[in-house]
């Protein structure tokens, strides 16, 4: 079973420490972790550090299965691409990285399945440059999924999607995490989606971890006033999901 634990993790750009002292309890297979925090808090930097793209102090302790091509899959925030490739080619590319030139039917079948699940089969042979922001995000999610990682780091995967699509995609990721035993970390600004889908919430502000735990322990009126500078309450909607009701900017 996959487990992931961050131990006093920090991330540097060059010699400058941007994020420091991020620690979690062991995160378990099937868990969804929402990483929240104001703009420029260090969420993307933390993801790059976990993915091994940046250096820094601390440890990323990962117990991974052996089935995966790469234990940690990272979906960057920037999904813009102007390569002369079709959507299908760009997803195949993610799947075949580090492999031989030949493309097996099993690869294509897996790609077809993921594309169908994300409802992007109709745009399979459209040029990447002709996609909308939301479509690009869905393609980027597919590119990460076809690598069959044990841990998925998704940097604002739903920021360009409409509300319906946001709930669809996050429900799908939640189901996939449970089904495949993945750990999914999602950097997200929408606190209501974090409350609805996350098992754990990790709060970062000014490059430091401020809290990590059950969503309602982290997202509360005191934190919202302190970190986001807003007066807000937590109330349940008709389907019993917790929601942040914003009253206004804190005085």
């Amino acid at each position, binding site marked *: 079973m996959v487990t992931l634990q961050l131990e006093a993790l920090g991330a540097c750009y060059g010699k400058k420490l941007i994020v420091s002292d991020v620690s979690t309890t062991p995160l378990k297979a099937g868990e969804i972790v929402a990483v929240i925090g104001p703009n420029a808090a260090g969420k993307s930097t933390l993801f790059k550090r976990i993915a091994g793209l940046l250096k820094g102090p601390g440890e990323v302790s990962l117990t991974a299965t052996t089935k995966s091509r790469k234990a940690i899959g990272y979906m960057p925030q920037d999904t813009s691409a102007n390569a002369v490739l079709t959507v299908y080619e760009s997803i195949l590319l993610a799947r075949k990285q580090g492999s031989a030139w030949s493309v097996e039917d099993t690869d294509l079948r897996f790609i077809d399945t993921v594309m*169908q699940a994300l409802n992007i089969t109709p745009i399979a042979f459209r040029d990447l440059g002709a996609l909308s922001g939301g479509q690009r995000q869905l393609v980027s999610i597919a590119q990460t999924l076809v690598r069959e990682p044990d841990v998925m780091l998704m940097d604002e995967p739903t920021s360009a999607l409409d509300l319906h699509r946001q709930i669809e995609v996050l429900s799908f990721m939640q189901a996939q995490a449970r*089904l495949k035993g993945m750990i999914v970390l999602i950097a997200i600004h929408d606190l209501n989606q974090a409350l609805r889908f996350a098992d754990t919430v990790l709060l970062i502000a000014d490059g430091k971890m401020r809290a990590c735990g059950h969503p309602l322990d982290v997202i509360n009126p005191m934190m919202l006033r302190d970190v986001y500078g807003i007066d807000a309450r937590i109330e349940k909607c008709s389907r019993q999901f917790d929601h942040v009701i914003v009253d206004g900017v804190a005085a």
Partner: protein
Amino acid sequence: MAAADIILTREAAVQGRGEYRARTRRKIMILVGLSLALCLSFAVDLAWGPARYGLDQVILALIDPDAVSAQVRTVIWDIRMPVAVMAIVVGAALSVAGAQMQTILANPLASPFTLGISAAASFGAALGIVTTVPIIPVAAGLIVPVNAFIMALAATLFIHFVSQVRGVSVQTVVLLGIALVFTFNALLAFVQYLASEQALSQVVFWTMGSLTKATWPKIWATLAVLLIALPLFARNAWALTAIRLGEDKAASFGVNVRYIRLETMLIISLLASVPVSFVGTIGFVGLVGPHIARMILGEDQRFFLPGSVLAGALLLSVTSIVSKSILPGVVFPIGIITALVGVPFFISLILSNVRRSW
């Protein structure tokens, strides 16, 4: 969007897997078509000249040299063959160099010619011709090509390292390339000013770019560089394609972007400088060849790479035919013809669909 495990529908599989396989077959057919066009162009290049032969005669001379007259054999094998083969090898090398430069610099205007690498090689060669001073100690016969190579390598690495500096945009790299062209052209003019009359005429002819300087040792050397480069690029095909999706995305796929960029740049410097050191400055093939390949095959390197090889080779082979067809009995330096064809293409690239493709 189903929450549980997804059952792939037949319709989705046909739209996906079936269509992908059909498109792949189409790309392979395009590559076969380009290869056939190259064979035809090669045969015409051998057939055309002051004495014109039929294609049947050329094919006979290639298959069974003893079946044609000694004169035809000598013209085709000893005079035209090195030029025709050199056109193909140099065209392929420059086109691949341009293709990979455009890939790793994410820049549609990148090519050995536009970024000043050819100008650097010209300066290095001119320095060798005029002063006979080698930049590094080598045998006398190798001074010109080695000087050209060292200068081209220095220019390539300079562009590479500047493009790696944080915040440097694609436009900055192009402007830097233009600055390099001006700098090396000024240095070339300086060397020409100091040159003797004989050395000057040699330098001027060299900078025009001409395949008439082709010899078998030069062909083998260029071919060797191409045969070293192509498998290395082929090995990195998925990684190089991924780099076109952006540095972060490629890194997220597990690509060591820094290493691939450096390795590719070093190979490019060889590919760009060796042909130039032998046949002089031949511009725009490295720009136009990859764009043709990209337009018809896309940027999946498994097709884009052989497509660039064939498009560049075909382009220079056809140009070789044109260079001896304009005025009967006159063979124009091929660099003049490629520039005449390339400049309008270059302008149209800037003005038209650059934004759409990149």
